[in-house]
């Protein structure tokens, strides 16, 4: 922000470099990792789990920057502020990933989400953007306040803020299933349910996604969702671990609803962004499923492993999907993907990328998505629990339904007849976007063909519970 306007371009470069550099300490930490390091009286921890998630968040932000460059250049937007807000949101996410007490996690969540309120309304002149922003904002604040209320109850009950102490106190006093704890659990779940946009707290997502600038939408649907999930995982497993049986059931219902409803509505969409919004809602349902079941079975480690694996793969393929939507809607100048007929002929590369991302979302081997879905099914059936199996069946059916609308996009761009109006348009595929595309596609493929790389997550999540 201190830089003069003419040199705004450097801001982008600077932000990119900054994020890259911020990876360095992570690597060092990883290399020099021995045991979890605790700071600020156990309210802040550095363990492999947090390191991995931090790495994920930073990468996502990095890619988002790459996505943003051209968007920002394209119009008179505040650049510095844009990057600044994104970075602060990133900071929030980083905090969440290693926070271990109510205050820190609350600050993290707020820090992560507040900037997004502004970014989602970044297109000042655009009414849709404003509208999305206000909806996002109001629900966001409400959710925050609910979370707070839940926290306050917890504090009142235990007098502690640090998770480990709270949970030990709850267990000691065998209050794990007392109504107050449950109430606070409900409030927390609802509050975070808003961030991860699960039914019935999803309603803001499609509108906000549609209104917000595309890079921001991508970030919303990936990073803040991830943040929300991390927060949820930490809270549920560190604080409410005792009352798993209660919230487990609830989450099962929620995730089942989320998958189904998201899919069914997505079938109806002709706006690619809204389609992705609903698809990401149903994906959230899939991510939620293992946690839910782990609540019932108590095998948190497996549940976390599955969810986080899904989260990571989902993050990259979804970014890729947004990238392709960005490309094609810029090319066709239409937010109705039925008008993209035959666009892939213009740029086969973009076409192939799009196909890969969307079919990966649909979970077709050998693309990453299949392994994500696979681990989820695995932990669902592994529970050997009738509820889990039922949820698995629901998931399987949804996976098939989802195929219909995911395939629809690549059907349009490859199989439909080219629209005459699009003929003379030129297909823009700038280099930064190419970088994003190649990077995400690589990860999508690698995670599909050599899913072995995720195996260490198991060990990681075990450490996560070691303390």
């Amino acid at each position, binding site marked *: 922000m201190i830089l003069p306007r003419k040199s705004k371009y450097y801001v982008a470069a600077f932000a990119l470099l900054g994020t890259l550099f911020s990876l360095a300490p992570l690597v060092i930490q990883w290399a020099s990792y021995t045991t979890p390091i605790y700071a600020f009286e156990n309210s802040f921890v550095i363990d492999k789990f947090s390191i991995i998630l931090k790495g994920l968040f930073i990468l996502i932000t990095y890619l988002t920057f790459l996505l943003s460059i051209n968007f920002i250049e394209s119009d008179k937007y505040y650049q510095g502020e844009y990057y600044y807000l994104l970075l602060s949101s990133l900071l929030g996410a980083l905090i969440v990933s290693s926070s271990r007490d109510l205050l820190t996690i609350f600050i993290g969540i707020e820090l992560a989400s507040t900037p997004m309120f502004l970014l989602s309304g970044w297109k000042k002149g655009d009414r849709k953007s404003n509208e999305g922003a*206000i*909806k996002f904002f*109001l*629900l966001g604040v*409400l*959710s925050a306040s*609910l979370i707070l209320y839940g926290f306050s109850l917890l504090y009142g009950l235990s007098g502690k803020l640090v998770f480990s102490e709270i949970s030990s106190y709850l267990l000691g006093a065998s209050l794990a*299933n007392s109504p107050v704890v*449950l*109430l606070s659990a*409900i*409030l927390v*779940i*609802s509050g975070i*349910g*808003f961030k991860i946009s699960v*039914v*019935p*707290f999803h*309603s*803001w997502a*499609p*509108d906000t996604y549609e209104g917000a600038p595309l890079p921001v939408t991508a970030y919303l649907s990936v990073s803040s969702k991830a943040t929300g999930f991390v927060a949820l995982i930490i809270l549920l497993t560190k604080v409410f671990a005792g009352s798993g*049986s*209660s*919230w487990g*059931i*609830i989450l099962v*219902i*929620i995730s089942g609803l989320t998958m189904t*409803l998201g*899919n*069914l*509505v*997505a*079938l*109806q969409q002709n706006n690619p962004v809204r389609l992705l919004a609903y698809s990401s809602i149903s994906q959230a349902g899939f991510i939620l499923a293992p946690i839910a079941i782990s609540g019932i079975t108590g095998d948190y480690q497996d549940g976390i492993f599955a969810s986080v694996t899904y989260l990571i793969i989902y993050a990259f393929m979804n970014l890729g999907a947004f990238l392709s939507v960005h490309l094609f809607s810029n090319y066709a100048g239409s937010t109705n993907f039925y008008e993209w007929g035959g666009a892939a002929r213009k740029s086969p590369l973009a076409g192939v990328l799009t196909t890969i991302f969307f079919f990966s979302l649909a979970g077709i081997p050998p693309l990453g998505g299949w392994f994500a879905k696979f681990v989820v099914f695995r932990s669902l059936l592994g529970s050997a629990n009738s509820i889990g199996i039922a949820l698995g069946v629901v998931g399987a059916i949804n996976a098939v*339904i989802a195929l*219909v609308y995911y395939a629809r996009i690549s059907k349009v761009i490859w199989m439909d007849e080219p629209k005459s109006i699009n003929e003379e348009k030129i297909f823009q595929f700038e280099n930064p976007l190419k970088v994003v595309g190649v990077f995400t596609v690589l990860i999508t493929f690698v995670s599909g063909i050599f899913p072995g790389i995720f195996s260490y997550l198991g060990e990681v999540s075990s450490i996560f519970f070691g303390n």
Partner: protein
Amino acid sequence: MVNFKPTVFAEGELVYTDGGILAEYAWLLVVLPFVAALVITFTGKYLPLKGAEVALTTIGIIFLYSAALMYLHITSGVVNEFFINVGSIGVFDIEFGWVVDGLSIMMYFVVGTVALLVFIYATNYMEGEIRYTFFFTSLTLFAGSMLVLVSSPTLIQILIGWELVGVCSYLLIGHYWEKKDNSSAAMKAFITNKIADVGLMIGIIILALNTGTLRISKILYQSTHDYEKLSTVAFVAAILLFVGAMGKSAQFPLHVWLPDAMAGPTPVSALMHAATMVTAGVYLLARMFPFYKAMAPDALDVVMLFGVITLLAAGLIAVVQDDLKKVLAYSTVSQLGYMVAAIGSGAYTAALFHLWTHAFFKALLFLGAGSVIHSVHSNSMLEMGGLRKVMPKTFATFIIGTIALAGLPPFAGFFSKDEILASFNHEGETTFFFIAVLGAFITAFYMTRAVSLTFLGEYRGHGHPHESHNLMTTPLLTLSVFAIASGWVNIPGVYTGFTDWVTTRKNKIVEYHPESFDLFALSSGLLAGLLGIALGYYLYQLQGSAETGDNKIKIQPIWSVLENKYYLDHFYFKFVIDPVKINISKAVDKFNTNVIDRFVNGFGQVASLMGSVVYNNFDQNGIDKLLNMSSTGTDNFGGKVKLLQTGKTQQYLMLFLGGVVTISLLILFIT
């Protein structure tokens, strides 16, 4: 005064050699035609005679080889079989191979001889016809397939030959496939046979699975030695095999395809009716005879019943035909009825003997008819007549054939038919015996009718008929020699070589074989034949000229004539001949065309109708609709669901808090 002696060949007592090199290389008989077919297909167009020469040489070799085998067999009985394993499946060995014994050698010889002559005949007959080369390809294949069938030591190979014969007949009957009728006739032949083949297939399956082998000799051995193994299924299997035989050997009610098969060129009909196709069924029954005799005597009665029905029904139909080839066709059916009935009555030798003689004189008759048609350019006897003068050779040979068929001594048919009658008589099947005699009478009658309509009287056609080319008449003459002499190989009391030929085989044949003439059967058969000819001659010559023969009887009431002189005749005419000649036979004809034909034709239509019903109402609108409905259904549901998304912020908030409340309530209830 008639004395019989059982001729029993048990394995031990058989006097036979292994046939040496001649038997070892008998596979040439089977393989050569297929090689030839390939050669003709690829090189035929460039050869001077358009491939005919290849076919002729091949079939010539086959003829010589089979003759050599025959000689060897007559001098020192040959029994041997060879197997080639072409794969094992489970416990089964799938084997091809070739069997060399009396039965098969007799068939080789018949096929070789008839085929050779027919081929020679065809080179001239088919001259200038379209697809000349292809015709010879399929004709060679036809002979080859028949050899596959008769040479087979395993049921699986029998099945293969069986179907190959069917396909070749399909190709040949449909030779002029530009006309839809012809291709339909071809289809009809194929489908009818296929229906029968289902029986054969299942029969084979049952036999194979209950005996654990596909080798015929083993199965027959078990059926004579290991009663329990087969006894339960024997009857069913026997009947099913017979169903297969009914198809190929055109037994009532599956004979309908044979008359239509006349759509093919005449040489094909000759080959098909004399040697190659229709004899297959009889051959199968003969091959499996020990099994029938030992395990399923009841089945034999069924066989006999159908045989008798066939011979009568077909004979009656033949009387009313105006198409020369059709007359012969129905006569074939009826003669096959004789053979099958003979097998049914347990007269193994008699049946094969009739097959043997019939092959020659029926080939002769068909080729004769062919040469007539070739010169008259019409099948209808109403457009013939008076050809005696213009086509002397054809006429002479045709007459020989007719007499042979009618069964007058010393022509071939006489001996074989007499043996069948004798065996009926001996078995005490009085009814069947008399039906058979009646059949003989009818045969003689319609043949006489055919002769008089064709050759006697005045010419009624338009073209200028002429005697056929030597290439066509030579075979006729050759065949007529056989038609006369082929019966002399099995004269009871004089020389019964044929019996020894066909009973010299690996498996015991238990049958009763007349040691000397059964004079009663002989006389009745002879009488019937003579009567038939006499009556025919009477009606179509004495009662008036050939051309108006039929009309006379129909139009001008004969009772007036009889009133003058022959009340008896009048009575006969009034109450016997007219009904039989017009009503009953017409009725049988009607039944044939209207009921059975319609069924077979209708089969396709019904099936396709059902097909369309199933397809349109169930497949497309049933399963698919369900599927599409479900997909659109989900869409619509999604349409409903998305209405939650009103876009009104406050309702979102409401939804949000509503969610919270619901969850709390849920928890309240669940925990």
